[in-house]
């Protein structure tokens, strides 16, 4: 049973954590794509920017959350979301809108977003230095150890406080996004524009507003994902390059343009990563006596070492592009 708990800790919980973060990130990418038709490479850096804003605010007001017993970072998250959303809209006005007005090819927009990536990264590193910093400025990170009430189980199930917040916020985001897209006027207009921009414009939808709203949502979600990731581990300015590939893989697996597909894709990629680096030899250990020598003696049965984690999203990406370019939910082909 200890091995099973080990599996629970290392695969189920870890997979859900990375999956949630990829899912929230991929929703932003997929929304931006469905409205503006280009792969937004700067998304991971907008996530970093959101986390950075939270860090600045938490350093400025370290006791903000003490009254209700949550970390300061979480209380200040809405402010950071607003700032990040404002940044996303500002970036669009300054860099993407003029190019869109010129009617450039989507790949040129991609290059522009690469430029934005570098600018954001440069600015964040300029102000924060290059080292990692914890977002828990004055608070203590609670770690819950749940011992299962079963005989012979010594290893507890470990879950940390930020991970619980992450699960709660992910569910809140998904429900909120669903209600927004299916019930509100703006959400319906967004879906209309994603299906057919010209028709949407002809039927009186203000496309400029929709674009701005998309950036606000994408920016806000990016801030949530970046902050929760940094809460779980640490804040690092060079977070973004490790996030970019899994997020795009998630968006494409789920079918580009499908927000809920992106969420599913995020969990697929997250679980695939943790399953691939998990040492399957651990699960064989209880049956050690009844197994043939060569199998029981095999030391490490992980598919890839943790240092090759980045291979996994890439492999998924290529596999899905080759066999099913529309993704599992029949999205658009970029």
């Amino acid at each position: 049973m200890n091995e099973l708990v080990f599996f629970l800790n290392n695969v189920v919980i870890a997979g859900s954590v990375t999956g949630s973060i990829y899912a929230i990130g991929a929703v932003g990418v997929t929304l931006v794509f469905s409205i503006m038709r280009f792969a937004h490479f700067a998304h991971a850096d907008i996530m970093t920017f959101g986390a950075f804003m939270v860090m600045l605010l938490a350093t400025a007001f370290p006791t903000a959350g003490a009254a209700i017993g949550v970390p300061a970072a979480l209380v200040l998250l809405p402010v950071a979301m607003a700032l990040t959303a404002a940044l996303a809209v500002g970036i669009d006005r300054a860099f993407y809108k003029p190019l869109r007005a010129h009617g450039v090819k989507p790949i040129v927009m991609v290059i522009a977003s690469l430029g934005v990536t570098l600018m954001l990264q440069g600015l964040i590193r300029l102000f924060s230095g290059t080292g990692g910093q914890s977002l828990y400025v004055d608070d203590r990170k609670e770690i819950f150890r749940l011992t299962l009430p079963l005989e012979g189980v010594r290893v507890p199930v470990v879950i940390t406080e930020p991970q619980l917040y992450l699960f709660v916020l992910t569910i809140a985001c998904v429900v909120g996004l669903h209600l927004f897209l299916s019930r509100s006027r703006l959400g319906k207009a967004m879906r209309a524009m994603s299906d057919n921009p010209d028709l949407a414009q002809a039927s009186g939808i203000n496309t400029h507003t929709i674009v701005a709203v998309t950036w606000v949502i994408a920016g806000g979600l990016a801030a949530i994902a970046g902050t929760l990731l940094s809460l779980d581990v640490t804040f690092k300015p060079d977070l973004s390059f490790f996030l970019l590939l899994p997020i795009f893989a998630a968006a494409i697996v789920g079918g580009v343009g499908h927000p809920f597909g992106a969420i599913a894709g995020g969990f697929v990629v997250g679980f695939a990563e943790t399953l691939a680096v998990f040492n399957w030899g651990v699960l064989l250990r209880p049956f050690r006596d009844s197994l043939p020598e060569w199998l029981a003696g095999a030391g490490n049965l992980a598919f890839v070492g943790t240092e090759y984690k980045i291979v996994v999203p890439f492999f998924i990406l290529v596999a899905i592009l080759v066999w099913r370019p529309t993704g599992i939910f029949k999205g658009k082909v970029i």
Partner: protein
Amino acid sequence: MDKTRPDTVAAPRRFPLREVVLFAALLLAVLGVYAVMGAAYSTRMLVEAACYAILALGLTIQWGYAGQFNAGVMGFVALGGFCAMTFSVPVNEAFWGSELPGELGRVLLTMVAAALVVFGATRLDRLGVPKALRTLIAVVLAMVLYLVVINALRDVTDQIEARAGFIGGLGLPVGVGWIVGGALAGGVGYFIGRVCLGLRSDYLAIATLGIAEIIKAFLKNSDWLTRGTATVSPLPWPVPAPAEVGFTLARALYLSVTAVMIAVIFFLLTRAYYAPWGRMIRAIRDNEVSAAAMGKDINRRRLEIFVLGCILMGIGGAALASFNSLFDPQGYLPLNHTFLVLVMVILGGPGNNLGTLFGAVTVYIIWIMSGPIALYLMELAVTLGQASFGWEAPTNLDSRALQARVFVIGLLITLVLRFAPKGLLPEKVIHHG
């Protein structure tokens, strides 16, 4: 047919005023750097700029000639650097003297055999096995054999690391490493191209970005092959080393070697551009459908140009690694080796070789100089801040000022796209007839 398209139609045989002015300005900038920073430093900068120019020429044929957006230049540069290292570093007797090479060879043979078995399993449907069953068999077989091979390989590589450090080099002349570096980068580019070139440009960018990271992760973590983070140095030079003839002269000699390489590549590329082959490539770029209708084999040509670009990147990367005299897999950064090259190409003018050379040197000077300038500005700000309201500055200004380069490169990309989308020296589109 109206011919009044002043932005695209080049007037025949006009005086190349734009080129002359831009290159004169560049020459002034280089002389300025020489005056301020000294000859040894500036020559080093020029050699590095020359190596980058080879990379930029590689990217300009992919992006400029054929419209393929390769965001993984770094991976090919790293492969080139790896070959330059492996072929030129002295032979490691501790490894070759033991029985380890035999064991490594056996594992590699097992790997080939496993690959053949899996490949055979994917062809089982020809023997009448149902397709679903075939896929299942192939996947399960691939997973099991993969685990077997990877465990065997892990044993051998652990042995190598423990007893010999790493497998060492081959002690061959530097030029061999450069050529093989180009060949290896081209070979890897071939496989990537086979898989990814059918994708639309956004996907290609994402995929190549990922491949570059994977190549880097492999080189960084294969301690038995590259010593990983421990780095390998010194790498020999193809010309007399600085210890023999002094820094400036040695670097000048190296510069002349790279200059000859650039001249040859430039000449060949320009010939290719105006040849029927180049016309065909541009026709495919500008209108794939009509090129296909004329009977051109689009996928084949796209693959050709992708591989060609990768070869150049491998050669450039090999020259760069040899010049730094250090192979450090961790030192390959997307910023330094992908985006910098990208800016060089789009600033200079994609598809215009002369413009690409201009862009390479210009951007490299901006890149090198923006660190010191930012440091100067920051120190100025700190002095002012301390004088006026006692502001206490962070201590690690040096490392932070270096980050200003990241911002400058990003700003350059967006500015160029906005104000000079075709680059400073745009491709001259010739309209026949």
